[in-house]
Structure formats: structure tokens, C-alpha cells
């Protein structure tokens, strides 16, 4: 058994050809998922049962099942239904790309809304009482006091979530999408050299993780400048 460096050198550019798809999946599902998460959060913390319950079930279902199943349900499962195949969403749901984005977005939204809820719950009640005593309305307290503090509190968990999301994009390869992971799997199938290919790919993912971590680290530092003496 030998470690073939020439194979690594050949295959890294091939795998990097898929980084665009990996990053697109990551960014799209991160941004849309975060926006969706805000709505779910607002529903979840509302006092009205008809808003709160759907949000709770949504979070419960999508955090309680593997993403792989969610991807398969959307990609393989949805076409079972006539009305989906005739709907305006079909062009998107027909493509593995659209299915992967949809699954990752929904899954991420469920996680992020809980992260934000943790941040909201972490806001000291005293600040809100001070806001109330100054005559700020509930909405003003949420926008000007709760939200900024909660966002800062959420950053470390959010950063971990983005890393988790990046790792989850690799699952798109199971529905024939040629992201970095998909390309790696085809190369491995061809040359049967799992060590070389998969370790090189792992290094690429580790570098991306490192970048994400540091980017959020800087952001957190910036947003916590008021904490430091």
C-alpha cells in the first residue's frame, strides 16, 4: 500500500472545481435559513398558540431527524405527488441542486431559530425592566435592547452552526450533486484511492472551517468591544 502524491496533486484541482457548488449551497442555505429562522423565532416566542405550536413542531421535526432523510424526502419523495410535479416549484424540486438548497435551508432554519432563542433567553431581565421603566414599548424593547444583546450572545453558537452546515453540504453528493464531496467520490470510485483523495478533501474542508471560525471570531470581538475594559 502506498501513498500516491501524484494522484493528490492531480485530484485537488478537480475537487476544487466543486468548491463553487459547496460554497453556493452553504451561503444560500445560511442566508435564507437565517431569515427564515427569525420568523420562526418570532412565532416560537409569541404568546399565541397558533403561532407558537407550528414553530415548535417545525423545530422538533427538523432537529429530530437526520438531514439525509430530509434530503431524500424532498428529492426522491416529493415527485411521488402529482400536485408537486405540476406546481410552480417543480423546476426547482426537479433538480438535485434545488432540493439540496431547500433541505439545508429548512434544516438550518430550525437550528438557527433555537440558537437565537437561546440568545433571547440569555438577555438579562434587568435590562428589559429598565427599558420598561423608561417607557419603551414591548416592540421597542425587543428591537433596541433584546435583539442587539441576543445577537452578540448567539455568535459562538451560530458560528458552530455554519460549520455544521458546511459539513452538511457534503450530503448533497448523495443525490448526485457534484460538489467537492461528489467529485471526490467519483475519483475514488475510479482510482480506488480513498486515502489520498479523502484526506486531501478533508484538508480543504478543514481550511474552510478555519476561515469560518476566524471570521466569526473577529465579528464577535468587534461586537463585544463594549465588554472589554
Amino acid at each position, binding site marked *: *500500500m502506498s501513498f500516491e502524491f501524484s494522484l493528490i496533486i492531480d485530484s485537488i484541482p478537480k475537487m476544487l472545481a466543486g468548491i463553487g457548488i459547496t460554497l453556493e449551497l452553504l451561503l444560500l442555505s445560511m442566508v435564507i435559513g437565517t431569515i427564515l429562522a427569525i420568523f420562526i423565532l418570532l412565532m416560537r416566542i409569541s404568546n399565541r398558540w397558533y403561532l407558537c405550536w407550528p414553530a415548535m413542531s417545525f423545530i*422538533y*421535526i427538523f*432537529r*429530530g*431527524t*437526520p*438531514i*439525509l*432523510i*430530509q434530503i*431524500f*424526502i424532498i428529492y*426522491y*419523495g*416529493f*415527485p*411521488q*405527488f402529482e400536485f408537486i410535479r405540476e406546481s410552480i416549484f417543480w423546476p426547482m424540486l426537479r433538480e438535485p441542486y434545488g432540493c439540496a438548497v431547500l433541505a439545508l435551508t429548512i434544516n438550518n432554519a430550525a437550528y438557527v431559530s433555537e440558537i437565537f432563542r437561546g440568545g433571547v433567553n440569555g438577555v438579562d431581565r434587568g435590562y428589559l425592566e429598565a427599558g420598561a421603566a423608561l417607557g419603551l414599548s414591548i416592540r421597542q424593547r425587543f428591537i433596541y435592547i433584546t435583539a442587539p444583546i441576543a445577537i452578540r450572545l448567539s455568535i459562538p453558537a451560530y458560528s458552530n452552526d455554519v*460549520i455544521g452546515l*458546511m*459539513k*452538511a*453540504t*457534503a*450530503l448533497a*453528493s*448523495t443525490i448526485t450533486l457534484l460538489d467537492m*464531496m461528489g467529485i*471526490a*467520490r467519483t475519483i*475514488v470510485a475510479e482510482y*480506488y484511492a*480513498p*486515502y489520498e483523495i*479523502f*484526506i486531501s*478533501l*478533508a484538508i480543504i*474542508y*478543514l481550511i*474552510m*472551517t*478555519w476561515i469560518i471560525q476566524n471570521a466569526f471570531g473577529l465579528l464577535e470581538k468587534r461586537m463585544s468591544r463594549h465588554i472589554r475594559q
Partner: protein
Amino acid sequence: MDVLTGWWDDFFWGSIVILQVFLVALVMMVLFGLIGAAAKLSNSRIAQKLASAYTVIFRGTPELLVLLLIYYGSAIFLTNLFQLFDPSIKFVDIPPFWAGSFSIALIVGSYAAETFRGAFLGVDPGQIEAARALGISNFNTFIYVRIPEMWRLALPAFGNHMLSLIKDTALISIIGLNETMYAAEQAAGTTSKPFTMFIVAGCIYLGFSTVITLSVMLLEKRANKHLVGSR
């Protein structure tokens, strides 16, 4: 529901496999986590470096990639090894059950190492000092003071690790383990009702997650019962 006739068996045995993988991986995960945490807390710089490399690598690499690397990597290694003795052998692999359990335990163990380390450090040093001052031996302090407190601190995160484990078992179907997800794929392929089949698999997983979540809630209640009423 008619379409499911004939498939219930597969789903049932698939669930049993999930449970087996989960339990095996849980034991390994705790082991890896404890070793990792011990290395992080040790005085040896090499052990610390190795442990942090462990965390960094498995936190930053997709689960699927780790699984495929370990499964195919070990298969290549074993095949080469066995061919030294008997060149007629074509392919030797670690059974997907073990390769899979080992992989997901390794992945989740890297998170658990951090959790256990945090819980160890989270114990109020004042309590340890108090135990020392009372003349309790180091060993007994560890068993009667530190472990119960660590357990309480680590429980919520540990519950999440168990949820990750159960959900990661779904990945093992990709390397051919005959579990629920695999059953769903087979059923989806032959019945042309993929949605129904994957929904059934999803419900099974949701059931497992629910049981874990509820158990952790109960355990937390028990572990925190002495805190009732105080803030």
C-alpha cells in the same frame, strides 16, 4: 398504508440495527470523549496537542467524509494485508456495522471531549477545596464531589451528543448497513412510493430522538433536584 405491507419487517429490523449501532457507538463515544478530555487536561504537551488535533479534525470534516475514509481506507488496508498471505483474496473489509459505529463515535467523541473538559473545569474549585479541608482523599473527592457535579454540568450537551449519534446512524446506510434508512431506500425503489417510505424512516428517527430527549430531561430533573427553589 397498504403499500407498507411486507415492509414492516424491514423497518422493524432496521430500527433494531439503529439501536445496536447507537448503543455500541455510545460506549465508544464516551470512551473517546473521556480519553480526549483527559489528554486536554493532562500536563503533557504532546497529549494536549494530540487531543486538540483530534477535536479540530473531526469538528471540521464532514461526517460522510470521515465515514467513507474509515470504511474504504480500512478496507484497502486490510485487503492489502491479507493479500500478503493469500494473493487470491479480492476484498476484505471491516463490517459496515463496526466501521460505521466506530466512525460516528469518533466524530461525536471529539465534541464530547470538549464537553467533558468543560464540565471538569466547571466544577466550583471552592467545593474541591472544601472537600480537601475536610480531609477527604483525592480519590473520594473525585468520586463523591467532582463526578456528580460534572455529570450535572455535562448532561445538556451530552444529550445533544446522543441526538447527533442517533441521527448520524442514518449515514451508515451509505456504506451498505442494513438499517432503517437502507430499508426505506429498498422499499422506495420497489414500490414507487418513496415519500411514504422515507416518511416512515423519518418517524422512526423522530421516535428515537424523542425517547432520548425525554430521558435526558428526566435525568436533568434528577441531577438538578437539589437546586429546586434556589436561583
